[in-house]
């Protein structure tokens, strides 16, 4: 067993490298992923090591990146597509939702679609329009897709390999704001399966639930809450489709309170879905309504306003206070 400290970007890079080494059918494709190593350098060095037929720079066309990945999967390949930024996935949306998600079903089982689509997402990086969005709900809403998002380097390393090993299409959301901070990666064992959620911090009075970029923020909020005398449990959802509810329900049954955080707009979102399900399944355990702390239901604003738009620890704590007041 060896544990190394590395950034999420580096950990996903290492995971991709393992996948390329393990299976000759794994190919990476996307814009600028070759010599440049991707705009976030997640594929850095991989084309030099594996060649331009394993790490394929594509023309600039997202629908074609996904559509040709589908054809490659039909041929027996396991393509891993990089969409350069969250807001640029929509030219590929039709191929993802009408084709990729439905082809296994349309073939009645004779065809699998082992395609991974990596999408850097989320705000907190001060970028221009279309570069800070959180479009995960569209994909979680689409039957036939699996949707996951790591929040730590360790999960990034393992989850990308597990996503590539999946025979179903996986939309792999990478939290941009977490690309650079380092964390320990244990390359001996993943710990838990791809679609498992995980308790990131134990607590007893309120459950804070989030995924991807929110998890570190929820942990920070829990730390402050603890100092203020409230014990918060933090759950990292990890998988947005399917959702592993068992740890969520066990936690809410224990704490009686749930606050869900996400960067995406709240209307018709992952947080809404979980609020409804937890209300159904934990009705007699709840001491307070399930509360949501989300981005506003507006387009992502110019970056100088992102601090107001995005949930922060204070907004989470405000919700904790409201939940505790019931």
């Amino acid at each position, binding site marked *: 067993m060896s544990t190394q400290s590395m950034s999420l970007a580096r950990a996903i890079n290492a995971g991709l490298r393992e996948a390329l080494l393990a299976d000759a059918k794994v190919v990476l494709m996307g814009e600028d992923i070759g010599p440049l190593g991707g705009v976030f350098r997640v594929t850095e060095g991989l084309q030099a090591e594996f060649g331009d037929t394993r790490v394929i720079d594509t*023309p600039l066309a997202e629908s*074609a990146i996904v*559509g040709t990945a589908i054809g490659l999967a039909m041929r027996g390949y396991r393509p891993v597509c990089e969409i350069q930024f969250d807001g640029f996935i929509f*030219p590929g949306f039709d191929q993802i939702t009408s*084709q990729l998600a439905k082809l*296994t*079903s*349309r073939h009645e089982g004779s*065809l699998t679609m082992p395609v991974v689509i990596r999408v850097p997402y989320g705000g907190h990086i001060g970028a221009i329009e279309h570069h800070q969005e959180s479009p995960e709900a569209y994909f979680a809403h689409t039957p036939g897709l699996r949707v996951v998002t790591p929040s730590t380097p360790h999960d990034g390393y393992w989850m990308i390999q597990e996503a590539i090993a999946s025979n179903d299409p996986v939309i792999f959301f990478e939290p941009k704001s977490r690309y650079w901070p380092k964390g320990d990666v244990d390359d001996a064992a993943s710990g838990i399966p791809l679609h498992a959620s995980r308790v990131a911090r134990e607590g007893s009075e309120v459950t804070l639930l989030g995924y991807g970029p929110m998890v570190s923020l929820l942990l920070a909020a829990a730390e402050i809450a603890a100092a203020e005398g409230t014990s918060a449990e933090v759950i990292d959802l990890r998988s947005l489709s399917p959702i592993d509810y068992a740890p969520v329900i066990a936690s809410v049954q224990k704490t009686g309170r749930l606050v869900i955080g996400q960067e995406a707009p709240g209307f018709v979102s992952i947080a809404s879905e979980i609020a409804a399900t937890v209300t159904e399944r934990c009705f007699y355990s709840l001491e307070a309504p399930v509360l949501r702390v989300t981005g506003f239901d507006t387009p992502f604003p110019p970056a100088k306003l992102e601090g107001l738009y995005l949930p922060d620890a204070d907004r989470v704590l405000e919700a904790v206070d409201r939940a505790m007041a019931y």
Partner: protein
Amino acid sequence: MPYTAATVQLLSPEGAIVVNDVSAPYAHYIDDLSEQQLREFHRQMVVMRRFDTEAANLQRQGQLALWIPSIGQEAAQVGSGYAARPQDHIFPAYREHVVARIRGVDPVSIIAMLRGISHGGWNPAEHGNFHLYTLVIGSQTLHATGYAMGIQLDGNMATGNPDADEAVLVYFGDGASSQGDVSEALVFASSYQTPQVFFLQNNHWAISVPVSRQSRTPLYRRAAGFGMDGIQVDGNDVLASYAVTRASLDTARAGEGPQFIEALTYRIGAHTTSDDPTKYRDSAEADFWIAGDPIKRFEAYLRSRGEGDAFFAELAEEADDVAADARRKTLELVNPTAAKIFEHVYSEPHPLMDEQHAWLRDYEAGFERDRA
């Protein structure tokens, strides 16, 4: 007159062999065809036109939600379909019923789709590498291109053995030519020099919109802008459709890059049985194309080669038998069970599928319990 000086034609509308500079390079492909193959071309065209009529009748009788006629396009489909070699992969749009049958798909599978029993469902690997229909216009051109990229990565091309080297044949229409996915497919194919042929059936109508609204330039000329050769062929001439597609597929499989064919043909019938072409088009236009009908033309050619009445009479009988058989099989199709809703949405276990399927089973069983 839709034909241009560039149109490859080997049979005139009257069924006589055409000899000119444009067609000459393709003539030898026809010389290589046996009498049996020529009869087979005709057989498929006649049988599938009869099948098509039967399917439309079934729709009118309430047995299908919809039918998508392919009448008038038989030569483009038979010619190109037989041009593909067994190892080739074919990506259809949704009107390639004739190609489907050539590649071993029972056309009743297409009827089943339009009856609401499946979304396709056949396994291409067991049906002549004929992939499922794609209803979103133009999407399949990208799947075909990706598949061809896979052939290239596998190195199953350009070895010099046309019986082993693979190629991809993808069908789309004049309407699809306006779709972004088609342009993207042409860009990717050209960029990677994939072994594939883009086969555009220009049937002149995208539901109610004429090809003149899709393009101000003959569609085969679009290919040049993507860096590939475009060939225009008389799609109502089965011999030209065969020869040009055969040549193009062999060029592609030899590693000389993707090829583009525009086959000029005509949608004699409606877009689908839900449509009414009298609302938007002039019958004089259809008359022109009916005069150049692919089946009539090829029959004249075969008769000029000495084929007698007996063959055509026998064929008419066979076509009636196929139609009757399709009708019988249609009426015998079994409706799917609820399991079909949940099975195969994912290829690996998924908790929502299990939960919701179990819920539905229990809910349905509740009615049985109430009745008991």
